[in-house]
């Protein structure tokens, strides 16, 4: 690290020192629960006996196994491992649907990722992952989370998390990240669907794994963390006081 970067980093840390936020994600009808923590330039996700810490200052991802009492530290720059040969298209759409979830007024956003792979094409399939998000502006602590992402959102290792050496996946993930950053609210519920999009059989194990990895990468960013940036959310409420999605692309 260059010495001139140190004061800037210290300033960034001080500006985000109070941006603590945490929440819990629970699988409906299941037993999967994850806890998400945000502080300064770090975020952590706990699932069972496993923890993952992303440090945006150190540019590292630390994976901790609390059962085995072991850990690994990986630099963002060393995380390229995605498959090549995939063509990925991603999009986010605000449907205008509204409902109340756990007491929070929420708006529906549909995120889709279409994956084209040579194997899938041969089988006449078009694997698709659809994530239905319900976004609320009413969540307490939203400002703290917004502050976290305002400081760190641009430093997410999308090139690493979002597809490694696959340019198509990188572009798709970068686009999604940018669009999700425009969401003016906090995700209070998500429904994830894997679809084959045609063909007689389901997606191969490799395709399913690729899509699951993509989803995991997205989840690493939130989903409650997909809060809008305060500056860009200034126009929220213009459409009848409700949520709106701004496209910046």
């Amino acid at each position: 690290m260059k010495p001139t970067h140190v004061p800037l980093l210290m300033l960034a840390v001080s500006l985000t020192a109070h941006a603590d936020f945490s929440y819990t994600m629970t699988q409906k009808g299941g037993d999967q629960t994850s806890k998400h923590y945000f502080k300064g330039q770090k975020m952590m996700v706990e699932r069972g006996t496993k923890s993952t810490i992303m440090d945006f200052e150190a540019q590292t991802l630390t994976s901790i196994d609390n059962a085995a009492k072991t850990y690994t530290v990986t630099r963002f720059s060393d995380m390229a491992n995605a498959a090549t040969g995939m063509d990925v298209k991603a999009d986010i759409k605000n449907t205008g649907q509204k409902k109340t979830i756990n007491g929070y007024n929420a708006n529906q956003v549909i995120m889709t990722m279409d994956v084209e792979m040579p194997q899938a094409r041969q089988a006449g399939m078009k694997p698709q992952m659809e994530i239905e998000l319900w976004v609320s502006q009413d969540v307490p602590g939203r400002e703290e989370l917004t502050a976290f992402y305002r400081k760190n959102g641009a430093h997410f290792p999308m090139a690493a998390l979002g597809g490694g050496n696959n340019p198509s996946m990188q572009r798709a993930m970068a686009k999604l990240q940018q669009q999700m950053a425009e969401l003016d609210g906090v995700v209070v519920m998500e429904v994830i669907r894997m679809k084959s999009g045609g063909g007689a059989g389901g997606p191969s194990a490799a395709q399913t794994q690729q899509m699951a990895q993509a989803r995991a990468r997205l989840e690493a960013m939130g989903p409650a963390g997909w809060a809008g940036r305060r500056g860009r959310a200034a126009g929220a409420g213009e459409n009848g006081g409700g949520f709106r999605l701004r496209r910046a692309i």
Partner: protein
Amino acid sequence: MGAGSGSAALFETTMEAGNFSAGAIPDSAFAIPAGYQPLDK
């Protein structure tokens, strides 16, 4: 409620967020616990 393409879902799961808190989180929560061993990658 599916708002995407019409193809049937092979897999579906629903996650709900809750227990939102803006309370202070100690720095130690983001530290590797003492005594843990690094693994070779």
